């Protein structure tokens, strides 16, 4: 449909295509036995204008590149929906009920060390963010939930989170612990559980 390119143009085209780095006109010329390559470069640049590939010169070095407006096509996004791990769910719950909390506080509530990545997942999900530092020795970073957290869980505010009594009434607690909790509740020194939770939500 268009006139076939002459041999020099073809040679320059192939040389630039196969090159591992941008080439100066002099380097291309040396490669092609000293031919005058500038007209061929101009012809190629014109030929490729508007195509998916273009021939550009940067600092006197020529190279092919994909057209800038197509850059988005060369990066493909893929969304992968993943369930939050058990550990991450616990940490998120602790942040939600106790915020703002430091990492050390989260660990003391969970009773286990929290892997670095667990908190990172929540930060990445956009449900938790750092909100400052606690003014205690070591000035630990403290974390709180975000508006994105509320909207993901369909909560108007953190006050919508059920208290521990409601959890039990709703049967949301592990059955094996029911007797234990009952015992604690009737225990002599008040209900530590209940207090913590109330304070946290105050």
């Amino acid at each position, binding site marked *: 449909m268009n006139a076939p390119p002459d041999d020099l143009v073809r040679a320059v085209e192939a040389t630039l295509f196969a090159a591992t780095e941008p080439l100066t006109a002099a380097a291309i010329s040396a490669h092609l036995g000293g031919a005058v390559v500038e007209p061929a470069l101009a012809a190629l640049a014109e030929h490729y204008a508007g195509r998916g590939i273009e021939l550009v010169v940067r600092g006197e070095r020529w190279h092919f590149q994909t057209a800038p407006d197509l850059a988005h096509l060369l990066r493909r996004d893929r969304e992968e929906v993943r369930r939050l791990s058990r550990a991450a769910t616990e940490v998120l719950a602790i942040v939600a009920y106790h915020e703002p909390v430091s990492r050390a506080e989260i660990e003391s509530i969970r009773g286990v060390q929290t892997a670095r990545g667990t908190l990172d997942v929540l930060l990445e999900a956009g449900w938790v963010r750092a909100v400052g530092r606690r003014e205690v020795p070591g000035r630990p970073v403290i974390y709180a939930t975000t508006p994105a957290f509320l909207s993901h869980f369909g909560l108007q505010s953190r006050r919508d989170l059920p208290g521990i009594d409601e959890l039990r009434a709703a049967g949301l607690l592990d059955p094996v612990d029911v007797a234990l909790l009952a015992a604690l509740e009737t225990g002599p020194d008040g209900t*530590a559980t209940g207090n913590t939770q109330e304070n946290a939500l105050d």
Partner: protein
Amino acid sequence: MPLPADSPPGSPPDDEAALVLSLDGWEGPLDLLLDLARRQKVDLRRISILALVDQYLDHIERARALRLELAADYLVMAAWLAYLKSGLLLPREAQEEPSPEELALRLQLRLQRLAAMREAAARLLARDRLGRDVFPRGNPEGLAVDRHQQWTCDWFDLVQAYGQVKARTAPVVHMVRDRMVMTLETALARVSAMLGVSLDWVELRDLLPDQPDPQLRRSALASSFVAALELARLGKAELAQAEPFGPLRLRGVPG
């Protein structure tokens, strides 16, 4: 490596130096046979097997005369070809299976197949090869796939996780509820006291306290039974039972 096709036309394999050289080049008896067959300058389908056998045996003889070390498979092939030759030449009384002609044909077919693959390999290598004759793009940007994690979790899991954390980390307190029981000591005292009152046989059931609580009744029965056994062992009481699972009666032994 000497290529068979490069041999001068019609050169008989009588040059000993060339022979020594060429024996290094063979990849095995079939390879040598194929080269010899090609020297016949005819289509492989029309080669003379007898001539081929003679040429091969001649080669082997010369190699032996020069005390060249020959791999065993060359000698095995030589023996087999000598047998084939005799089969082809000698008159036969009975038809052997497989016939020498069939063996010769088989050899010929094998040579054809090896020759075909050798030629195919040469034609394959002569093609425009990527990286030698044609080149891919020198510095491709590459196509990237950006993976985004979309995390999900629901309200139920969140709330349940919190409940379980609290339950798991609450201080563990162990409490045993007080249960109404009759201890063995109580039963012993009761039973021996009641046996002292009467010398007649009484049923164990009649010795039990009048108790509405079923748990306490069961406990009293068990303890009183053990108390009766203990009193019998000590010689302070006699036990009698008319039939299995019948009423257990007991009587005090005076003294």
